[in-house]
């Protein structure tokens, strides 16, 4: 745990302020069994996660399926009500106490609604994320409508502007989602996310379902929009190369916990966590000459409803020792801006790419 993360880092350099701080975030899904729906256990999808996002930067959240990266993203804006933890956000509309940050947890519904103008989401599935019964204009305009803007020529002009901004034509306005290709649908989803002029956009696997060429277009678009609108992104994905490409900083998650957070370049070139190292090594490189001593992780990702003792990664870790089975490592700042949760981080010499 790193409750003093923010103070340390802000002292280090004149880096941009923190826009979002996530502290001790937990989301447990109950497992219910039997006629009376007795809770027999919990899936610890997100288990004590800490990170922060600076203004104007992109934080990549990467990990294998079931590591809780999507759940973490959704818990931040309380799409899933978190079990515990704090989410501090620098709102433009609502003033915070002291450091200017406001805690989203326990915020009354009307204030939370205001916050939803400032944090929006882009989803993975280009088919499922758009309501098939609504036209593009309805879909993109919906957030504005929800926040009290009536449909009319002015609103429509805003929508047209957004569509053009994401690379769609104004005559697409009256069309339905099924008439578009996957890449275009994703653009519609991006236009919707931008319609209320947010500060932070949580992108939940926005390019995983797209073809390679369309993926590149979409990534470029996201980067352009980030500069134009001064956006911050939380970019959730499982593809390490995509995350590296778009992120300023990257957080690696494993079974509900953050294993490592660092500057993207540093994390990829000099990882401090054995899981990061193994993950990087496992990615197939688009270079036939690249021959590495690939680290093959044994076994499967741990079951979040029944995680191993100590460090969750120890059964698959080639550096595991006795202490790893017993004690759960805490996330600590080993180098400036480089956080890692590993008992042996100091002594290990790990290889990056």
């Amino acid at each position: 745990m790193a409750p003093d993360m923010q103070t340390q880092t802000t002292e280090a350099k004149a880096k941009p302020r923190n826009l979002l701080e996530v502290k001790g975030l937990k989301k447990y899904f109950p497992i219910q069994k039997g006629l009376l729906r007795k809770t027999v256990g919990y899936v610890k999808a997100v288990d004590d996660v800490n990170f922060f996002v600076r203004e104007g930067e992109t934080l990549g959240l990467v990990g294998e399926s079931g590591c809780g990266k999507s759940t973490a993203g959704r818990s931040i804006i309380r799409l899933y009500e978190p079990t515990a933890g704090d989410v501090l956000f620098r709102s433009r509309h609502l003033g915070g106490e002291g450091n200017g940050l406001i805690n989203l947890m326990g915020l009354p519904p009307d204030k939370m609604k205001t916050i939803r103008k400032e944090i929006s989401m882009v989803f993975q599935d280009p088919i499922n994320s758009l309501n098939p019964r609504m036209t593009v204009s309805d879909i993109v305009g919906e957030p504005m409508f929800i926040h009290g803007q009536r449909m009319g020529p002015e609103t429509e002009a805003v929508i047209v502007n957004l569509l053009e901004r994401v690379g769609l034509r104004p005559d697409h306005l009256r069309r339905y989602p099924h008439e578009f290709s996957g890449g275009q649908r994703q653009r519609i989803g991006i236009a919707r996310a931008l319609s209320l002029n947010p500060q932070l956009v949580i992108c939940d696997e926005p390019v995983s379902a797209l073809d390679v060429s369309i993926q590149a277009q979409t990534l470029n678009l996201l980067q352009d929009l980030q500069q134009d609108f001064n956006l911050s992104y939380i970019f959730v994905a499982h593809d390490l190369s995509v995350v590296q490409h778009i992120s300023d900083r990257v957080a690696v998650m494993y079974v509900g916990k953050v294993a490592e957070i660092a500057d993207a370049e540093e994390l990829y070139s000099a990882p401090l966590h054995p899981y990061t190292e193994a993950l990087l090594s496992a990615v197939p490189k688009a270079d036939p000459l690249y021959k590495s001593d690939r680290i093959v992780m044994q076994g499967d990702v741990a079951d979040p409803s029944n995680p191993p003792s100590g460090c969750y990664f120890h059964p698959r870790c080639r550096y595991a020792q006795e202490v790893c089975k017993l004690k759960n490592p805490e996330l600590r700042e080993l180098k400036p801006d480089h956080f890692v949760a590993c008992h042996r981080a100091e002594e290990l010499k790990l290889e990056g790419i």
Partner: protein
Amino acid sequence: MSKPLHDPLIEVKDLRVEFDVRAGIVKAVDGLTLTIHRGKTLGVIGESGCGKSMTARAILNMIPKPGKITNGEIIYHRRMKNSLESQVDDIIDLTKVDPDGKVIRQIRGGEIGMIFQEPMSSLTPVYTAGVHINEAVSLHHLVPLQKVGDQIGEQVQAHRKVTKEESRVIAIDMLRRVGIPKPEERVDNYPHQLSGGQRQRVMIAVALSCEPAMLIADEPTTALDVSIEAQILDIMRDLQQSANMAIMFITHNLGVIASMAEEIVVMYMGKAVEQGKVLEIFQNPKHPYTQALLRSIPKLGKKKTGERLASITGMVPDPFNLPTGCVFHPRCPMFMAGKCDKIAPQWKKVGEDHSVSCLLYE
């Protein structure tokens, strides 16, 4: 295996697969020619809808309705197992055999195995019900309520006439070979008791249990995590070497193909646009589409801040309304007006074992 390069197993010649649907005719595969050599891996890459999966299905004569092979031949050099090498191969044109007949049933699963990304959804519609239960059962590896051991066992039984006890031993052995821990126990497990990676391994075990001459792997690791993907790819490479099996590896993931394939075919809108050795394709790509494809993937480990990806402009064209001339011309950065939109390019050899279908080189 005296001359491995000229020991073809499957030769696809000018293959056309068309779908006659309400809105018109879709050319899923349009004049494709390729060769798969014994014991080698051919990688087929392309984006969704480029016809790579249909090619694989055509080889097994399993085109789903309303699709049809309208032209071309697929020559299969059939070599009986346990036969001497000097023996002459049987030559079978797979497009001519009865799609429900005995020959193709022996070939499917027995001599050419197949693994899918999603076994359940991609298989069901292809088979006519009840006609060849054995085939269906053996290919439907993960039928619920069927034990893992039974499934592999059925496959073995269907093709080889062995006893139940023998097939169980083979099943356990196969599970061990694909790296499933405690195969003696796992053999009695139901599919829902297995994780995604384990299920894919069982699928591979099923496909390989009859020691096929070729394995068609259609996006076998796309649904898997990278750590599991690495395991599966390792297993496939090991098994290929020990069994001298050819692999047709279909994927859109350039990283996977670079580490698996020896030869590569790049497909776009039902046509092959470039083929050659893996090194040639990656280091010296000739076709603008291949070049763009390679540039558009983010490279791990080589990052410049704020760098933009080179993307291919525009979208995949409407399959009912294909561009004239070269199908890639509307998106091509090297477009030559008056030429690319008029003339359909021919194959041109640009190096040893490297050819391209582009007017730039003609």
